[in-house]
C-alpha cells in the first residue's frame, strides 16, 4: 500500500533539487563583488515615507480570527471526506449523520457571522 507513494518521494526529491538549483544559481553564475555593498543597497525596498521597519511586525487581529475559523471549517472538510467515500455503502444512516454534522457547523457559522467575525476590519 505504502509502495504506491514511492513516485511522490521522487517528485519531492526532484522538486527540492530544482528549487536548490534555482536558489543557488546566482552564486554560481552571478557577478561576484569584492566590496561589501553600501547600506543603501542593503536596505529593503522603500517607497513613500521612510520607516524603520525591522523584524517582528505587528499585524491585524483579523488575520488571527481567519486562522481560527479556518481550523474549524477545515476540520469539517477533512471529517466529511471519509463519510463522502462511504456514503453509498451506509445510505440513509450516513446521510443523517452528515446532515446533523453540517447543521452543527452551520450553527457555529451563523454565530460567527452574526458576531461580525467575517467582517474585514
Amino acid at each position, binding site marked *: 500500500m505504502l509502495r504506491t507513494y514511492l513516485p511522490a518521494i521522487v*517528485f519531492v526529491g526532484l522538486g527540492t533539487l530544482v528549487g536548490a538549483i534555482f536558489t543557488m544559481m546566482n552564486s554560481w553564475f552571478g557577478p561576484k563583488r569584492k566590496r561589501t555593498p553600501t547600506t543603501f543597497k542593503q536596505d529593503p525596498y522603500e517607497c513613500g515615507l521612510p520607516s524603520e521597519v525591522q523584524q517582528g511586525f505587528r499585524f491585524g487581529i483579523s488575520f488571527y480570527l481567519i486562522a481560527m475559523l479556518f481550523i474549524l471549517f477545515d476540520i469539517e472538510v477533512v471529517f466529511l471526506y471519509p463519510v463522502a467515500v462511504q456514503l453509498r455503502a451506509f*445510505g440513509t444512516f450516513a446521510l443523517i449523520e452528515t446532515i446533523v454534522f453540517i447543521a452543527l457547523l452551520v450553527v457555529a457559522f451563523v454565530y460567527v457571522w452574526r458576531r461580525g467575525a467575517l467582517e474585514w476590519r
Partner: protein
Amino acid sequence: MISLPFADVTYYEPWWVQIIKAIVIFAVGLQLVPVVLVVERKLLGRFQHRYGPNRVGPFGALQPLADIVKLATKEQFRPRTSIGWLFAIAPVISILTAVAALSLVPFGGVVDIFGTDVGLYGVDVSIGPLYLFAFGAVAFYGIMLGGWSSGSKYSFLGSMRAAAQLISYEVSQGLALVGVVMTAGTLSMSGIVEAQEGMWYVIPQFVGFIIFLTASFAETNRPPFDLVEADAELVGGYNTEYGGGRFASYFFAEYLNVVVVSGIVVTVFFGGWLLPFGIDTPGWLQPFVVLFKMTFFIVFFIWIRATLPRLRYDQLMSFGWKVLLPLATLNALVTAIVVVATD
C-alpha cells in the same frame, strides 16, 4: 468495527518503473512551464492589442530561455533585514510543493508499454484530493516564510494576505470536491476518472465545478485574486525582495500550480483521459487528451487575467467566507441527499 478504505489502490508497478515514470512526468511538467509562460505573454499582448514578446526566436518562443539566462546571471543578494536561511529555503518550499502536487494528475490509465503495465500517473494514492490539499497547505509556508523573512513591510503585508487568502479559499476548495467524492465513491484520482464514464462530473456537479475553479484561482494567487502580489499597492507582495534565481523559483512555482490545477480540474470534472460520446481512448492517446483539455483551462486562466479587475481585500474575504463557503456546504448537502436518494 468496520474498516473504512478510502479507495482500493493496491496496484503498483516495480520500483524502477515508478522512478522512471516520476522522472518522465516531472520532465514534462517542467517543460510545460516555459510554454505556459510564453503563451501567457503572447496572449496578454494580443488581449491588449499589442504583439507581446516577438524578438527572441520565432514568434518570441525562446523568450523564457532568455529570461532564465538573465535571472541566472544576477547577483546573489539579500536585504540586511532578512533572515538568511529562511529567505533561502522559502522559494524551495514553494517549488517542491508545486512539483509534488503535479504527481497527482493522472495522464492516463494503466497501459501496456513494452510488456510492462504502467499507470500513466505519478501517484494514485488512496487519499487522492487530500494529498493535494496537504501539499497546498505546505505551499502556504513557502509564501508566508518568504514574505516574513524578507524584513520588508511590503513583503510582510503580502505574505499576511497570502496566508489569510489561502486558508480562506482552501475550505471552499475542499468542500467543492466532497460532492465529487460522494458521487464517485472513491478518493483515487484514476477511480474518479473511471467513474465519469458516461457523464463527466461537470454536468451533475456544475456548482461544485464553479466553486472549485473560483477557489483555485485564489489558491494559485492568480488574478482576479492576486491580492498577494497586488502590484499597485504592495509593489510585488511577498516576492518584493526576491530577485534572480529565487524569484524565478517563485515564478516557476506559480505557473506550475496553474498547470497542476488545470490538470486536477480536467481529472475531476472533465473526465480526465476519457473522450466524449463513449469513444474508447487508446492508451497512447490518453496523455494527449489530458494535455489537450488542460490547455483549455490554462488559456482560461490567462483569459480571466486579461479580463477581470482585481478585487479589494475585504471583498475577497467576504466573498470567500460568505458566498463560496455556504454555497459549497449546500452543494455537499444536496449532493449527499441526491446520491442517497437515487441509490
